[in-house]
């Protein structure tokens, strides 16, 4: 069994306002092609864990492996590169750059990676948009499209560098049931057709039940 993402004994403390042990001895791994979800009450530390896994939060003890390589302790700009290449991220709020067109938003991480030519990147981006059924919006300003569409653009952007894993912080939390369903089926399809690994933090029990595995968290511990 091969892990895309693996943690060993991760602990994290918040210092402010009072010292607080947020994450306690976290051991777990995401297999290749697995669609996992993290559930738990708010304050259980699930988002905190996700941001550590995303490499954006470096203030923890323990070890984090991505594709069997140790990530913990790397320099910030190295982490930026790792994020750029290996991790796609979808947030609860869409967070697109509002002055840029939809296509440019999707292309931006690939331009930063700079492994392909501009025309290839553009082709890839159009491909992703087409896969998500929003290719018509490519030239629209990102501020001019609906919430459900924005979330799909964000997914396209997360996928542009063909990452090893897609992470989501309540990606459906701000969407109506129709759009939530839409996003779920996109995730499902990505897993089945592309073999993508996914790790989604969610409050939505229906959403979580349909994933391969539910990781339950409570008081900073993984229960199962």
């Amino acid at each position, binding site marked *: 069994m091969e892990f895309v993402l693996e943690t060993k004994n991760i602990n994290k403390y918040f210092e402010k306002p009072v010292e607080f042990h947020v994450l306690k001895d976290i051991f777990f791994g995401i297999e290749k092609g697995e669609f996992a979800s993290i559930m738990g009450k708010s304050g259980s530390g699930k988002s905190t864990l996700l941001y550590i896994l995303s490499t954006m939060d470096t203030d923890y003890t323990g070890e984090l492996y991505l594709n069997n390589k140790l990530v913990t302790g790397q320099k910030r700009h190295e982490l*930026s590169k790792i994020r750029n290449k290996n991790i796609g991220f979808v947030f609860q709020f869409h967070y697109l750059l509002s002055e840029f067109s939809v296509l440019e938003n999707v292309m931006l991480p690939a331009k930063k990676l700079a492994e392909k030519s501009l025309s290839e990147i553009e082709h890839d981006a159009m491909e992703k948009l087409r896969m998500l059924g929003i290719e018509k919006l490519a030239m629209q300003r990102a501020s001019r499209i609906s919430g459900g569409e924005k979330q799909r653009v964000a997914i396209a952007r997360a996928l542009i560098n063909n990452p090893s894993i897609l992470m989501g912080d309540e990606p459906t939390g701000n969407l109506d049931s129709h759009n939530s369903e839409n996003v779920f089926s996109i995730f499902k399809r990505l897993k089945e057709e592309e073999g993508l690994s996914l790790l989604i933090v969610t409050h939505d029990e229906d959403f979580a039940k349909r994933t391969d595995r539910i990781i339950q968290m409570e008081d900073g511990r993984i229960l199962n």
Partner: protein
Amino acid sequence: MINWKVILNIAKTHLLTKMKSTVTASLGVTFGIGAYITLVSFMTGLNEMLDSLILNQTPHIHIYNEIEPSEKQPIALYQEFEDAFNVVNSIKPKQSQKKIHNGLPILNYLKRDKKVYGATPQLRAQIFYLSGSIELGGNLVGVDIMEEAKLSNIGDYIVEGTAQDLKNSENGILLGAGLAKKMSLKKGDRVQVSTIKGDVFPLKIVGIYQSGIADIDNIQSYTNLKTIQRILGEAQNYITDINVKLYDINEATSMAKSFGQQFQVKATSINEANAQFETGSNIRNLITYAVSITLLIVAGFGIYNILNMLIYEKMKDIAILKATGFSGNDVQLIFMSQAMIIGAIGGIFGLIVGFVLSKLIDNVAFETEALPTITTYPINYNAWYYVIGISFALISTFVAGWLPSNKAKRIDPVRIIRGT
């Protein structure tokens, strides 16, 4: 690796969507640099004009015999009073001649010196200009006029006639403009001069000389060296002054000192003679720079403000850029390049504005009795000021951009995204 294309593209988009702020910030720089260029060109132009007004009439080194008391009075040589405290009342100047001893050999020696651009002999004499029964006191300076015209810009100050006219006439005179006015004389007329001894000579006015300094124009005239030697009844080696022009004006002081010791004469350099002009120029330059730097600092604060606001507005964008793999340095470069673009565009427009304003001032009529060669306000078009101007613009925008962009670099994306 820095991906400039992506960074500049983001910077460009930010600047274009915030057109108003961009224009305001650039205008601040444009105003600062434009004012600097205009001020410094005008001020230094004026400085140069004022300096040249005086300095062009002052040789780099002036050699002459000073009438002064002996440094060692005879009693100091008397051994019996060696240990005594001697008091000498009413010391008189030492009896000496006005002419420079061995003037012509010294002149030849100076002309062969490699550091000397040229040396001209002069004979300054006190005379009276006679107009009917009225006697006007004044100077008559005998010069080698062609040599003089080559070394100094005396030619600029001959308002009627030419230097050649003087050279060609045996008993010609370039009459001071003030004198000509007082005595109602014009070119072609004759004027009688009398020496201190009382000999009267008629001279023909071949031109009018106007230096712009009334005190000189009212008393001083020029004639050929030979003419005045004849008037005074002196030999051809009788000269009272030697004016030396050097290749490098900065060596004037040290060379004047060595000439003075070598020839046992008084030698003063231009720096000693005109120290106050240097001071004036320096202070005017200081004011120019103080005003310009103030303007640029104000422009810098404008840029700082606008970038700061932009960064607060773009907090989420910065977080998302970082989340998708842009490093802190990339983010800093995005905002730094915005600052530098504002600085460069504002600076270049500032240079253009400064140049146009200088041109305008350059064409404004400025005519004055005192300055016969000047018709418009003087402007100094020195390319260095433009280099300094654009450097100022870039440095001040760099500093103004550094602080906010450094803040953007350190923004923690997790905090922004989680909204804590």
